[in-house]
């Protein structure tokens, strides 16, 4: 699995993805890690199929006992169906996930890990050197959905927002925004159900100082491409299936 460091100043952000051994019929996903001196948070750690390569990759940065926290932006299987396996590997860990999905996520198996519910208004995760903000992103696409904003590194982990469907060997960063647009259009129009929710999120996110917008599928936006993405998304009409 490819490992790329996004930020390294007192603590690190690492993205994992482009697993060469992933089955072709599984969607490719990006997993993120925030590593501090003695703790480690995995963001959207992935589906069951990805558990072994993901944990193996994480062991390059942290011992198992220091992987203390997991975050699930929403309930989808590609986000967190590996929960039952993490539950065996990290019995002391905490899972931060939307409150409304608790009873659903427990179906994946969550007996040992502590479920820390995130209420609709959002919250924070204090990792010591950084306090992460949990930004509500409901209905984008899931009805209970959060992004993670790091005010120090200025990275916004945006879950499915900004996602693109493309080949598993695609580069980690957006290089040509105009060319990238077509890889995102269908995903956003079909998976995102609400223009109202989209505009509400854009309004909230525009207030944040963002240097990197890091989605769970596809490529990461850097610098001016973040603003370009927000403009493009703002102009896009979503919820396309109801028009069929």
């Amino acid at each position: 699995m490819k490992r790329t460091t996004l930020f390294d100043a007192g603590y690190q952000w690492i993205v994992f993805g482009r697993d060469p051994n992933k089955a072709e019929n599984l969607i490719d996903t990006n997993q993120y890690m925030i590593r501090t001196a003695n703790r480690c948070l995995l963001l959207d750690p992935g589906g069951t199929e990805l558990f072994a390569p993901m944990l193996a990759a994480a062991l390059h940065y942290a011992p198992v006992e220091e992987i203390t926290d997991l975050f699930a932006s929403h309930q989808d299987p590609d986000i967190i169906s590996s929960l039952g396996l993490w539950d065996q590997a990290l019995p002391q860990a905490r899972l931060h996930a939307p409150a409304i999905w608790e009873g659903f996520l427990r179906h994946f198996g969550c007996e040992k890990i502590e479920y820390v519910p995130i209420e609709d208004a959002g919250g924070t995760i204090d990792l010591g050197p950084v306090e992460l903000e949990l930004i509500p992103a409901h209905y984008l696409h899931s009805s209970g959905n959060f992004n993670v904003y790091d005010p120090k590194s200025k990275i916004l982990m945006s879950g499915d927002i900004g996602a693109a469907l493309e080949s598993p060997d695609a580069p980690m960063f957006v290089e040509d925004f105009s060319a990238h647009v077509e890889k995102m259009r269908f995903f956003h129009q079909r998976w995102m159900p609400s223009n109202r929710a989209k505009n509400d999120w854009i309004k909230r996110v525009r207030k944040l100082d963002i240097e990197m917008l890091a989605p769970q599928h596809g490529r990461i936006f850097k610098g001016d491409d973040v603003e370009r993405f927000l403009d493009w998304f703002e102009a896009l009409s979503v919820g396309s299936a109801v028009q069929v």
Partner: protein
Amino acid sequence: MKAHIERKKSQFVVVASIATELSDVMVVAKEISLAAANAKAIAYRAGEKARGFQPITDFINELARETIELVNQINEQASALYETTVKEYRYEQANKQFKTVSALSCEAVYKDSLVPIAAQLEEELEEMRYQFKNQVDQLLDQLSEIMHPARAARVIAANSRIEASQAGEFLQSLLTVAESVDKAAELMYTNVQRCRSSMAMMEL
């Protein structure tokens, strides 16, 4: 590997199907209970002619009560076994995945940190397998226990026929009672036997 998955699948199916078979047995036990009440009423009306039949109705009733109690106990045991099957399956999956992690992380700095957790899981898995085997044995014992009322019901049905023959104009009504007890007992016997043979076929 494929054989292992098939074995697990069959365990899930067998354990789940026990509940279905037992719910049929429960229906039958309730039918026997109804037959007992019916027989009691007929025997009461028949008076002296059905004197020998009256204690039989108490037996039938007792039999139905005992069967219902046993079915409830077996149901509890079957659902505990189902929970263990699910848990054991999850532990086995994790165990398998941990082995893959070990193979994939041979160059990782912190690869050894997984060793104690993997060892702990192996231990828990062993315990789970032991618990599973115990629960299966207990369930098999309970299933053979429930065969006793099934056999007894058939004997009672035979005795009921003999007593019915003394009951004059009530003969037909009492024979119907005997028939329904006999049929119910046969169904009960068949269903429980089916549970036992499917459990025996399960590769434990």
